[in-house]
């Protein structure tokens, strides 16, 4: 349940970035989440609806780039994902126990997609708006 404070933190940051960019609405939030980060994107999204209600970020969808757990062997440079393996972190290529975690701890906000006031006036749909005649 630690995604609740994380979702609150993301919301705060997203609203600030949206205000700085003079956004009328936030449509999409891009985040990067590694499998080792201990953060569940699904849980963050679950809290989002109620947390963001009444803000320009309500209704935004999440684009999540998942980064798998990756280790790299120091002896043969083989990169592998140890998740799901037997209880071992040894290199599957050469058997070495000299390995390093190279990916999976990532956990960051990357970007937001926004609409500016011009294209998101309530009750107006830019697609059907009559074009000004030249």
């Amino acid at each position, binding site marked *: *349940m*630690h995604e609740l*404070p*994380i979702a*609150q*933190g*993301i919301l*705060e*940051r*997203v609203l600030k*970035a*949206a205000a700085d*960019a003079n*956004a009328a609405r936030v*449509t*999409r939030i*891009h*985040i990067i*989440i590694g499998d*080792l*980060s*201990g*953060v569940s994107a699904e849980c963050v999204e679950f809290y989002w609806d109620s947390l963001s209600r009444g803000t320009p970020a309500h209704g935004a969808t999440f684009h999540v780039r998942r980064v798998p*757990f990756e*280790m790299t062997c120091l002896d043969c440079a083989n990169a592998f994902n140890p998740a799901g393996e037997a*209880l*071992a*972190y*040894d290199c599957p290529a050469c058997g070495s*126990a000299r*390995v390093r*975690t190279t990916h*999976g*701890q990532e*956990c*960051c*906000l*990357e*970007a*937001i*997609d*926004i*609409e*500016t006031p011009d*294209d998101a006036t309530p009750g107006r749909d*830019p697609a059907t708006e009559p074009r000004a005649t030249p």
Partner: protein
Amino acid sequence: MSVRVPVVEAITKANDELARLNRAKLDARGILGLNIMASPGAGKTSIIECIVPRLSRDLRVGVIEGDIATSFDAERAAAAGATAVQINTGGSCHLEAQMVSQALDQLPLDALDLLIIENVGNLICPATFALGTHLNILVASVPEGDDKPYKHPRMYRGVQVLIINKIDLLPYVRFDLDRFRRGVSALNEGVRTFEVSCTSGAGIDSLVDWVRSEAVARRASTARVEVRP
């Protein structure tokens, strides 16, 4: 038309900033901060009970106890000789920097040399939230099993010190110390490790000596900063 605005920063940034403020409060007074994490029942409070009476001979020790409910652990830490504050998280499965900040306000920081924070028993969430301590310590215990470094890689990666507790039970439970150590070493090579038993007292001496020397070094480094012109 939709516009993409880059906002590149850590998802935990809000907590990280508060953690930095906590760290500054400790650093201003030369207090060494320890964050002890473990699963429930690994022996976090028992270790505090073992080491505080001996550390208290030379150091003024404060303890912040994090639990979902009750103040049993703060009472145990106080009985061991520490100035203790209990945080009840009311259901939250981990401590956050904000909670620690409030607890720091209740402690006589000017009269402390060492602050031990006992996190909520949990091997997942505490690893995500920095508290502002100098060292993260993980307590693993033999009855939990030797598979924990493989099941909770994040927690094992994020600590500077590992205490293996209940080593007196090694003859009675299935725990392959070699497999455990290999997993730890793959994730966190060179992590400082202590093997202890709060029941038999094995290994407690070296743990106490190490904590004392770290606290003394921390205090000395602050003193040096203060006399600088």
